[in-house]
């Protein structure tokens, strides 16, 4: 399996948009290389805006640039794309209904060695609480590239979350990205496992282990946390009668939290959630951090066995 970083998928998508959509502009807060925006910058210097280490200003400029028809893509780390500029996004982008694409790399603990100051685990929650905001967390390079291209055609604010480490690139390169439409990866009958971002791959690995134990898992990739594909989730749970959620994010406010609301209102089936439990991250190699914080295939297997026992 080819290993590729999702941020490079973003960079490749942006490169393609540079050619196909003259209204796309890109802004970056001193992280052009990290966000893989170099190609766009080289190909379209007149449409690339280096704002320096000034994220609040970047969000405001992006909001203003929409007036007159531009489609701004802002690029910085996920922490500086959200918690640092929450009020700017809230007022100048979300409340103002501006067509800004907030593109956020290095999300979650897999940012790795830089440690907790940079490992935002609250961003999905913050962004999904904002009215008008679409929240997308693709799982691999191909899907991130496709999502980047797709959001340019959607009119309205979008938060696009991706990451730093090289991970398996397993989704088809030619699959069109549909905002808000869950991707069914594997049929199963005993449990529904819904995952987002890097943990989709972990969920697929967990499914193999579970199969060896005679457990049939249905795997759904929820790349769009808002709007949530409620129908896909409820349909699957009506069959399997239990569900596990998995995300590289805080349990409070994440995908699992959205699904708990959905089930509570519609079909209160047993639910287990894989995510970070009310703690900050730390420095370390990405995959060791996934293991330590209970975000890997092993954790998904354990949660699955627990939820099935509760049926």
């Amino acid at each position, binding site marked *: 399996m080819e290993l590729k970083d999702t941020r490079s998928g973003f960079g490749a998508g942006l490169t393609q948009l540079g050619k196909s959509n003259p209204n796309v502009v890109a802004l970056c807060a001193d992280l052009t290389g990290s966000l893989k925006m170099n190609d766009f910058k080289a190909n379209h210097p007149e449409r690339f*805006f280096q704002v320096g280490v000034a994220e*609040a200003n970047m969000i*405001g400029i992006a909001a*203003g640039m929409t*007036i*007159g028809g531009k489609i701004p893509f802002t690029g910085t780390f996920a922490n500086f794309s959200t918690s640092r500029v929450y009020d*700017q996004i809230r007022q*100048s982008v979300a409340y103002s*209904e*501006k067509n800004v694409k907030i593109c956020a790399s290095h999300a979650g603990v897999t940012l790795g060695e830089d440690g907790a100051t940079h490992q935002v685990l609250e961003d999905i929650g913050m962004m999904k609480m904002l009215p008008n905001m679409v929240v997308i967390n693709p799982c691999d390079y191909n899907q991130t590239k496709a999502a980047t291209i797709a959001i340019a055609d959607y009119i309205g604010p979008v938060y696009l979350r991706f990451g730093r480490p090289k991970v398996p690139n397993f989704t088809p390169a030619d699959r069109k990205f549909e905002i808000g439409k869950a991707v069914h990866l594997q049929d199963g009958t005993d449990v529904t496992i819904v995952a987002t971002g890097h943990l989709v791959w972990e969920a697929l690995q967990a499914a193999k282990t579970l199969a060896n134990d005679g457990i049939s898992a249905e795997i759904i990739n929820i790349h769009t946390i808002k709007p949530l594909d409620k129908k896909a989730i409820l349909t699957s749970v009506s069959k399997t009668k239990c569900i596990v959620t998995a995300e590289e994010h805080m349990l409070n406010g994440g995908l699992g939290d959205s699904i708990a609301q959905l089930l509570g209102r519609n079909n209160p089936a047993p639910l287990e959630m894989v995510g970070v439990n009310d703690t900050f991250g730390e420095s370390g190699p990405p995959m060791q951090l996934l293991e330590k914080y209970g975000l890997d295939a092993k954790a998904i297997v354990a949660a699955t066995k627990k939820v099935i026992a509760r049926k």
Partner: protein
Amino acid sequence: MPNIPELKDICTQIRRDILRMVHANNSGHPGGSLGCTEFFVSLYFEIMNHNNNFSMDGINEDLFFLSNGHISPVWYATLARSGYFELAELATFRKINSRLQGHPTTHDNLQGVRVSSGSLGQGLSVAIGAALTKKLNKDNSYIYSLHGDGELQEGQNWEAIMYASANKVDNLIATIDYNKKQIDGSINDVLPMGDIAKKFRAFDWEVMVEKDGNNLEAIISCLNNAKDLSAKGKPVVIILHTEMGNGVDFMIGTHAWHGVAPNDEQLADALSQNPETLGDY
């Protein structure tokens, strides 16, 4: 040549509008609104090339951004008196189901508003963004913006000020409403900011200081000079000395009317100082 008597009549009527709007729901910000009335009338009735048949994109017209959104009463009254929406709608200010929210918003498609403001310090960045898009679109129109002086205490402004000069955003004319007052008192009591003009010069802006910021002729001449200074590689800022509460004797010279509405008696007194000119809404 501007018709100053006519513009003065508009100012007087807008002052009445502001006072009546704020009084009607016993909330809002009359002080800064009254202090900026001449500025708004100069912009909308003399300086800006703008179209009251509103489009969000505003192609080939000048655009205005209000960063200190709390002085919405003067903006709403100016927009209504410019024909952006019906005068009668001013009566809905701050009431439920109104498009005239306490602080301006695009949320309800109010003609004339292009971004929400109220949480301070964000408007200059937005104005810069709009100015950059004008340049990309080869649209030679101007971007105007207004900011409170106390608002400059928000750090985002200085990010934006640094960016605009470094990137030669020279189709932008920002104005600072320099009334030297903020909610808790005078700027010098709350957080002294020293010489604001000097600070902008240090950031390589073209700086104009207008000490007569409640005088229509002075403002119009200043804004015309600002246009002449534009397109020369530097953003332009006008430090506009204004009197908070201007036009109402008991509101002038104090920060007390920043966000306080007049009672019935005070309203009657204030209106008697600003007799009806164009007809109340």
